[in-house]
């Protein structure tokens, strides 16, 4: 409950520096991280972290990440220190930038355990879009579907019912960059953040790959021409 209360304040503090409004990426839905030339949208991922910290983190851990890793999203060392300092670990002490993300107290959702989100985008077919579809896929069960006790209908989840409740709502967090925190915006932002968390090297990989492809494409052309020339002379 404390976390719920502090989440908007925390998000406001985090994003005070970033003033740019997000452009509309919701209709049609697009993610900057998608495609061969995709890279992580740092502003969206920062907002997504605010959503994670304010909403998801009460049940889902991200054990593979440290708070210092957030610097890759464009947070300064001071901001990261501030984020870490605002997290109270289980033993009562405050987290440091070198701490792993806080593990939430174990929750039992009618036999289901909330999965760790460190690599969730790599672990689910459909990746980023699946996360978005899942978070926006809750709704009343259509006729003919009987929900198990303690389950909620979700159109994107395999089988259609899931123990997790619909947690995102409009203004669940307040974005410091002024972006309107609609439910869909929050879902898209947290999906981008989780994409970064699963593959922190996505942008670097695409940059390295593109340079290597250009280099070897030229090398292959030169090598084939050389081979033809030599074969004309000697072959």
């Amino acid at each position, binding site marked *: 409950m404390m976390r719920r209360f502090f989440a908007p304040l925390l998000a406001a503090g985090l994003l005070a520096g970033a003033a740019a409004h997000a452009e509309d990426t919701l209709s049609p839905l697009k993610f900057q991280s998608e495609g*061969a030339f995709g890279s992580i949208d740092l502003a969206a991922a920062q907002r997504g972290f605010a959503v994670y910290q304010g909403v998801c983190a009460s049940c889902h851990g991200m054990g*593979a*990440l440290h708070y210092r*890793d957030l610097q890759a999203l464009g947070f300064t060392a001071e901001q990261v220190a501030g984020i870490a300092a605002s997290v109270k670990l289980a033993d009562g002490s405050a987290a440091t930038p070198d701490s792993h993300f806080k593990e939430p107290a174990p929750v039992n959702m009618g036999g289901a355990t909330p999965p760790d989100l*460190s*690599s969730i985008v*790599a*672990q*689910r*077919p459909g990746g980023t879009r699946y996360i978005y579809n899942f978070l926006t896929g809750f709704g009343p069960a259509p006729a003919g579907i009987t929900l198990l006790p303690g389950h909620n209908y979700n159109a994107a989840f395999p089988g259609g019912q899931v123990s997790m409740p619909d947690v995102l709502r409009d203004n669940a967090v307040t974005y410091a960059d002024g972006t309107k925190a609609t439910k869909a915006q929050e879902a898209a932002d947290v999906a981008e953040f989780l994409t970064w968390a699963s593959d*922190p*090297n996505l942008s670097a*990989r*695409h940059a*390295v*790959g*593109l340079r*290597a*492809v250009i*280099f*070897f*494409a030229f*090398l*292959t052309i030169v*090598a*084939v021409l*050389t*081979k033809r020339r*030599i*074969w004309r002379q*000697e*072959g």
Partner: protein
Amino acid sequence: MEAKQGWLASRVPGLGCVCGLMKEGRAPGVCWIAALPALLGALLAVLLASGAVITVYYNPWHAYASLQGITREVRGGWLVLSYHQVGASLAFALLYLHLFRILLVRGYRAPAEFAWMLWVKLLALLLLTGWLGFVLNGGEGGYSSLFNTSNAATTLSGFPGAVAMWFLGGQPGGSTLARLLVFHVLLALCAVWVILMARAAARKARPMLQGRVVPFWPVYAAQYFAALSALALLFALLLGFAPHWGQGTQNAIPAAAMAVPSISYPWYLTPLAGLAGVFPSVTGHIWAVVAAVALLYALPWLDRSKGAPPGRVYKLLTWLLALDVLALGLFTACPIGPMLPELLTFWFFFHFLVLTPLVTMMEAA
């Protein structure tokens, strides 16, 4: 060059032999596809180098977490892991292509039958090494596969049981991955030795040169370099834009002591996994895999053609076999019909046990 070669050859015979290859005479106009074994060797070198780096940071007692650490904490670790993953994928692709080409031109017959047997041994080694790599990831799919295999292995008795016990060490526990890591590395080193042997054997089995002869340097060196460069381009494409191509998402989930209903293998293991899955019980799976590889191994004896060139029917059947294996992999990964894997597996065995002896005998007559 001449002097250097003599100097080297008189001191290190092996190295002198490598320099000698540069001057070796060859028939003119050989297709680039004959460079496949050399490319495969280059990929094995990439796999060994990247594997050496990964092994330093890998912790078999915390396999999944240590690979996460290599990806997230080790500088450039994600790139080295991708080299290993993409290298494995391409090595299998090239080996499958090479085996298919030998089948198509009947390159497995005497005097090249020894080289063929070595290529099949390389396939068996790479399949086993690839499976071990899949298991060593510490993911859900790999763990389930290991669990099933070691369970089946405990039911084997006699000599196979003793070998399985020595290899897997009984039920999977904390130290099983440490043991399998040793085998992963050892088998990879064996693969290097086998590929060198196979190349030497294939070179010996080449027909005597007649007519015009061209030197390896620079004629074939230029061809090999162009082929290597094209391979590097393909490597870079996969590395940058599809590093997990054909791997599935299942093994990205950390292993839990809970069996998964169906294991999704990396693409290069799926045809064999599909073939094995047709047979009842995991013991049956193991024997099916052994039988499939043994059939390839026995091909020089199943072929009754006595030196006749491959005819049209044989070539058609070989293409069908390639499609059969591809389809087996595809429909194992995304099952659509209940009887499809059974039919495709039946065709695989039918091709080698019945069609090959029959057609080759008819074509030789």
